[in-house]
C-alpha cells in the first residue's frame, strides 16, 4: 500500500467521523435562534459539505481528470 492510498484511507475515515460530529453539533444548534447560532449552523453545514468533498476525493470521484502526486 503506497503513501497516497494510506492518506486517502485516513482521510476517508476522518471525514466520516468529522461529518458525523458536525451533524451532531448542527442538531444541537438547530433550535437556537441567536445570530451567532445561525452563523454557526451555516458554517457547520458547509464544513459537513467539505467532508463530503473529502470522501469524493478519497474515492477518486473528484477531480475528474484524476488526482494525486
Amino acid at each position: 500500500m503506497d503513501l497516497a492510498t494510506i492518506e486517502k484511507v485516513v482521510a476517508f475515515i476522518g471525514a466520516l467521523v468529522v461529518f458525523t460530529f458536525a451533524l451532531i453539533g448542527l442538531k444541537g444548534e438547530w433550535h437556537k435562534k441567536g445570530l451567532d447560532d445561525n452563523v454557526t449552523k451555516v458554517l457547520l453545514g458547509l464544513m459537513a459539505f467539505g467532508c463530503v468533498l473529502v470522501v469524493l476525493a478519497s474515492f477518486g470521484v473528484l477531480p475528474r481528470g484524476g488526482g494525486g502526486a
Partner: protein
Amino acid sequence: MAVSVAVHGHGPDDHGGHDDDIIYQETRDMRLMGFVLFLVSDVVLFSSYIFAYIYLRNSIQPTWPPIVDGHQLPRLDTAFAAFNSVVLFGSGVTMHFALESWKHANKPRFNTFMWLTIFLGLGFLGGQGYEYAHAQIGGWSGNIFGASFFTLTGMHGIHVFLGVCFLFALWIQTQRGVYTEHRFFGLTAGTLYWHFVDVIWVVLFFLFYLW
C-alpha cells in the same frame, strides 16, 4: 426577569448586578454584529482573490494546470490535501465542542477540546508547509498557477496561524477567569472565526485540488 435573576444568582434588590447583565447583553449583541461584519469583510477579501483565480483559469489559460516551458505542470497532491483538510475540519468540530463544554461548565472537557483544536490547527499548518516544500508547480512568481495557489493558500494560512494565536490567547483568558459560564463572548467569537477559516478551506480545497 425572574429567570435572569435565578440564573445569574443576583437577589431581587441587587439592581446593580441586574443592570450590569442588561448592559452586557446589549453590548454583546453589538460586538457580535461587529464581529460577524468583520467575517463578512473577510469573505469579500477572499472572494476577490477567488474570482480573480477563476477568471484567470477560464480566460487566460486554455489548459489547466498551465503549460510552462513546453511541459504541463502536474496536479497538486489530492490525497495529501484530503488528509490535511480532514485535520482542519476536525479542529472545527473540536472547537465547537470546546464552546459547548464551556457553556455546560465542564472545564476539563473544555481544556481537552481547546488543546485538540490548537494542535490540529498547528498540524494543518505543518501540512501546508510540507505541501509548499513538495508542490512541483513552480514558485510564487513562476506561473499563474503557482502565483494563485501560493497567494490564496498563503493568505488562508496566515488566517489559520492568527486563529491559533487567537485560540491560545482565549485559553489563557479562560485560565485567568476572564470568562464565566454566562459571559463568554470571546469564546463565541473565537469559535466563529475558526469555523470561518474551515469554510474558506472548503472552497480552496475544491478550487485547487478537485476542480
